[in-house]
């Protein structure tokens, strides 16, 4: 009986370890950052191709708008998480901020592309380049 109890206690401890809220938040944040980096990369590649006259406007806008939808979903899912500790709150805030910045930049790109405002498109492409690298680093914070 005692032995069973000990086993259950150990199991619970292990499970609790897996469910460490700080680690969990970091894992979810990193996953979201990687998905966001994917959307940012796609939008940048499509916009750059349009600037290089390798893509006509309809597909370029379509691809950027798809990326916008995709990052929108990622951000909404992540924002719905519930931080349980002060530490996980800090993680939550920093990832949430990065996601929403990326989302805004892609939206700006889509608007510029639709208006055929190539100067802004070029600026946004540079912005997204930096953002992509930043998201990539955030994505590598956890497995």
């Amino acid at each position, binding site marked *: 009986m005692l032995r069973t109890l000990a086993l259950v206690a150990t199991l619970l401890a292990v499970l609790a370890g897996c469910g460490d809220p700080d680690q969990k938040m970091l894992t979810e944040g990193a996953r979201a950052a990687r998905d966001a980096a994917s959307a940012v990369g796609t939008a940048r590649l499509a916009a750059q191709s349009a600037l290089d006259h*390798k*893509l006509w406007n*309809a*597909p370029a806008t379509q*691809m950027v708008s798809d990326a916008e939808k995709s990052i929108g979903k990622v951000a909404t899912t992540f924002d719905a998480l519930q931080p349980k500790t002060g530490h996980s709150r800090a993680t939550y805030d920093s990832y949430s901020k990065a996601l929403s910045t990326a989302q805004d930049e892609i939206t700006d790109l889509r608007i510029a592309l639709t208006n055929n405002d190539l100067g802004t498109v070029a600026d946004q492409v540079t912005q997204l380049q930096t953002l992509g690298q930043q998201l990539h680093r955030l994505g590598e914070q956890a497995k």
Partner: protein
Amino acid sequence: MKKLLAVTLGILTAIGGFVDIGDLVTNALVGARFGMRLAWVVVVGVIGICLYAEMSGRVVAMSGRPVFDLIRERLGRRTGLFALIASFLVTLLTLIAEIGGVALAFELASGVNYLLWMPLAAIAVWLVIWRVKFSHLEKVFGLLGLLLIVFAVALWKLGPNWGQLAHQVTHPVPTGHETWLTYAYYAIALFGAAMTPYEVFFFSSGGVEEKWSRNDLGTERANVYLGFPLGGLLSLAIAGCTAVLYLPAGIKVETLGQVTLPTAVALGKLGLAIVLVGVFAATFGAALETALSCGYTIAQYFGWQWGKFVRPRQASRFHLIIVICLALSILVLLTAVDPVKVTEYSVVFAAMALPLTYLPILIIANDPDYMGESTNGRVLNFLALIYLGLLLLASIAAIPLMIVTKAGQ
């Protein structure tokens, strides 16, 4: 000379017809996530579909009976019905994905939402089935599908580090954030994409539509043994493009736009235009094949008149099934479900359903009652049995892996 032309045409058609929305999406997706580390699965899948299609083609040529007719004969009414339901549902799901693919190709080209294109695509599929001769529809879309070779040109133009790609091929293990579970899940998806069951229902029914006999066996084998492997190379080129462009950038493939973007990056507007026509032909051709296959499977199980070799009114139930399936496809797609997601699921379910139709064909291909002297040889049977094992393994592992990986996440 005429014979040579017919054989060449058949092979070209088989290459173009090999790739459909499942191959496009799955290969692009896997290339972006795993590079060429799953390339071996495409090879295994192509050998598998060659075995399966050659056996079915031979069975048709020798007995004059298509696959699903014989499946009920071998499995009996009850087990046959189970095989029918599983195969039919997978084929219907594939049809939905193909029509979604046609609509997405038009959306990319025009910028007009795919939901508006989708009913038009479904109606066009029906019209072609209703009015166009079997041999024409197979040839036209198969040959247009050859335009997808532009993926191979794009890969070459992207100037990849070939040594690195080769390294990925020879190191078939998951890296980065991927685990063995996601690796195995996508291995099954790729396998299912290469060996989609409808290909064999269509191929074998096509044999009856075009009245194959013993004399056509050579042509049939050339189509299968040359056409499918070359189609498999196309699949690898698609994976290669995304492996070069997306894997280092951490881009995951979620849309048809992302599947086609590498050709624009490599070859510009012309490249994209060609690939869009190719994608349209491949998905529209496959939509025709899956819609017909929905009719073939049900009508052949119940023994109803089927086929395009008779006038539509003579095969009225067969045509009714096709109309209902197309209407169902429109309804499902109208729920705004993502056609790319439907595709991802359809290839995994395809892998699950395969043993149910593969086993009876293997049994019949060994039955001298049907085959005369053209039963399977020893080497062929040895290979076919290995594949039976592989198919069973993939079929059993598919659902647990889908649950554990949350469909590959």
